[in-house]
């Protein structure tokens, strides 16, 4: 595929990843994607579909067909706000929101998500904070996220942060659990078990 302007619009079978659909179908929540009848209820319901490069329906179709590159680099999967509207409305009981999670994880794993795109960065910051403290402190999160993606944007946001702080809604102190050790070893244990399974 050349670009979205309609040039070079042909996809060769040899450029597809036929196993991609099966792999996503095998991840938790993905089990029904091969039942999709392309009815579009998901996209019709999705409050965000109009801002997306591909609608959820098309993502399902493309996943199934093995359009791995397009799917993983799509902004759609990051734009999903997890409202679960599509999931409860789908006539084939496809857990579309969970499929989006599976795709996000896959994208992160393969490192193909859009650079400076805030959602994956937010997710990473979140991950770190919880790993360290067991809880997340929203103010820290926002600072670290903007530092990584768009330090300039910080300036516009700091006004809001200030307002929140004045209302007592933004702590500066790091919130943390007591037994951090146990939490970290728990997370490590599950990681180990998971990796053990993979091999």
């Amino acid at each position, binding site marked *: 595929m050349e670009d979205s302007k309609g040039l070079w619009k042909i996809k060769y079978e040899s450029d597809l990843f036929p196993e991609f659909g099966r792999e996503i179908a095998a991840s938790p929540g993905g089990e029904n994607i091969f039942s999709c009848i392309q009815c579009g209820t998901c996209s019709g319901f999705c409050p965000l579909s109009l801002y997306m490069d591909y609608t959820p329906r098309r993502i399902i179709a493309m996943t199934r067909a093995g359009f791995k590159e397009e799917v993983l680099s799509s902004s759609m999967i990051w734009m999903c*706000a997890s409202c*679960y509207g599509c999931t409860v409305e789908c006539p084939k009981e496809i857990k579309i929101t969970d499929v989006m999670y599976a795709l996000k994880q896959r994208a992160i794993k393969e490192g193909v998500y859009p650079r400076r795109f805030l959602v994956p960065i937010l997710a990473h910051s979140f991950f770190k904070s919880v790993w360290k403290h067991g*809880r997340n402190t929203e103010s820290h999160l926002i600072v670290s996220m903007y530092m990584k993606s768009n330090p300039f944007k910080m300036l516009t946001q700091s006004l809001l942060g200030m307002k929140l702080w004045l209302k007592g809604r933004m702590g500066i102190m790091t919130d943390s659990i007591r037994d951090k050790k146990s939490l970290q*070893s728990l997370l490590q244990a599950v990681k180990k078990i998971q990796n053990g399974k993979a091999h």
Partner: protein
Amino acid sequence: MRYIYYPGCSLKGTGRAYEESVLAVFRALELQFEELDDWNCCGATAYMAIDELQAFTLAARNLALAEKQFADEEEVNIIAPCSACYLVLMKAQHYIEEYTEIGDQIRSALKECHMEYEGRIRIRHPLDVFVNDIGLEKIKSLVRKPLDGLRVASYYGCQMVRPYKVFDHHYSPTTMDDLMRALGAKAVDWSLKTRCCGGSLTGTIEQVGMRLSFILLNEAQKRGANVIATSCPLCQFNLECYQGSMNRKFNGSVDLPAAYFTQLMGMAYGISNRELGLQRLFVPMTSQFSKKEGYQHVGV
């Protein structure tokens, strides 16, 4: 019945007023509860994007701690006011049951750390507990300053009713409307009760997130609401914090307080504004009510 209270990270930060009002209402209703000891992050949505299994493990630690704390209880009821926590905890529970591999991995990791999750947990939203455990009768009986004339647009958001339809309909829920009527308010009839507010998008793809919140506020205002009642700190934040920028960006004129439904309950019970955290709102409740006859006692 005894409950375990799970605040979650937001209720200690941006959603402080939610915690304050939830606890005030708990006390007014004489609900027996204990905070979950040494609770950790629920595993929230963003975390899930990186590693689902770890997210569910985080949730499972909370569930295991709760079971330990209420060791003698056959069913441990956890109240999670934040809709995101509510959903993530519940989702972890479902996945542990439905997907044996996930269940096995998490159980054995817990075991390694000398913990155990037996499955005695029932995750509850305070709205569910109020309406279904305590009952509208009792809720009504405690009202001291009925919210007469106040027009409330109940906003349920997504994750409290989807994908698990635990206590109300996933598209056209009614519990909160019933509750508001019990407090003496008028429930505004509108069709966006469960439409997404933009969630965390306000923080990432700002224009889009704001747009979604704007749609909700605009419609609620058009339908004559004086206040929009929320049940989730993220929804409340989105609906409230950007009203100025929204109006500039989308050429609108929204000016509508977004309060926690527990704050409205507290007001009807005559609990002080400060106890309910009303002073923390950006769009003060007065901005609307002073114009209204019938409801005067808010003075922030």
